[in-house]
């Protein structure tokens, strides 16, 4: 079971690396922030898998903090939008 979870985490990390391509390409800022949100979600997935695989329940807390701060980053980005972009 641990081997399977580790493999799943590895696959997620690979997908994370793929998501970084979108972050680098853009082209708009909204695309980049979307890529950040995606990578945040992927990291949460990896953390949850690792917390089972490594028997470290505290990683669930780390994942929770990431979920909450991802929302915060989205809010920080959309605060008073400007039309000239």
């Amino acid at each position, binding site marked *: 079971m641990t081997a399977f979870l580790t493999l799943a985490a590895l696959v997620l990390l690979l997908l994370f690396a793929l998501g970084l391509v979108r972050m680098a390409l853009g082209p708009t800022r909204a695309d980049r922030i979307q890529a950040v949100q995606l990578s945040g979600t992927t990291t949460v997935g990896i*953390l949850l898998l690792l917390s089972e695989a490594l028997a470290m329940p*505290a990683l669930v807390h780390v994942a929770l903090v990431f979920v909450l*701060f991802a929302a*915060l980053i989205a809010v*920080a980005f959309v*605060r*008073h*939008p400007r039309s000239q972009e």
Partner: protein
Amino acid sequence: MMVFDSLLALIIAALAWRCVTVRDLFQAIVTFIVLGLMLALSWTRLDAPDLALAEAGIGAGLLGVLLLSTWRVVRDAGPDQGEGPPPSPWVRTAAAVGSIALGTAFAVVLHTVEVDSDRAGGLALESLGEAGVEQPVTAVLLNFRSYDTLLELGVLLMALIGAVLLRSPLIHRPAAEDTGTESPLLPVLVTVFTPLVLLMGTFLVWAGAHSPGGAFQGGAVLAGAGVMLVLGGRLGGDAQVSLLLRALLILGVSVFTVIGLLLMPLEGAFMAYPEGLVYPLMVTIEFSLALSIGLTLLLLFTGTNGLRGAPA
């Protein structure tokens, strides 16, 4: 797991490289946030969930939001931050050679460091039973080296005072613009998420006694709740600082010091806690520290002396 770690290290190196080389400020900020995510993962791989929590809360979360807000201010300030001519090749070569030499020296020295289990780390783990809490990191921070932690809080307070003194160029946009958010989603998001963030922060402070967490991580998450309210226009910076706010800012240092002093006649030493009372004392100290840390971070975010409620 080997493949996972190698890939993680590769991604971190690539992200760090891109973060410092990319020309566009916004891209650099976005890369920095994602780098924070990966650093948190690497801390968990190094068996340091406490640091992963700190990185998640402060490194990726709070700092990312702060950088995004700063980017707005810098962009709104106009295109006057023109770049000077690029440094000459000689300067760049010298910088590169110097950095490589420093990096190599660090790598060599760190590689030859021998981990000695008789040192402080081993001692701390051995005497964990006397600390009153199960979590080694909290035991070290609040019991074995409480004096250092107290002084660190003093440093945090000084940092706030310094930042407030220098704040004027980076002050946030006036409230009229802050409340001009037109999306109907934002108020809902703020209403739903702020209590959750507060709950998580409080939980982390409390959890510090038996699992990773504690005043610093919890305080950062509490500050996150405040930042959410500021971004949603429910809370704003104010030039006036109220007495209550000042009291809360120094609450952590005061409670820490007063408990340490009051117990001196009982135990005969500054900051020695009597047996049996350790746990309640530590929790009291943790919560007062977290409140002060959270407020300090929030004020560093708003860059103002005080806070005020929503402009009705």
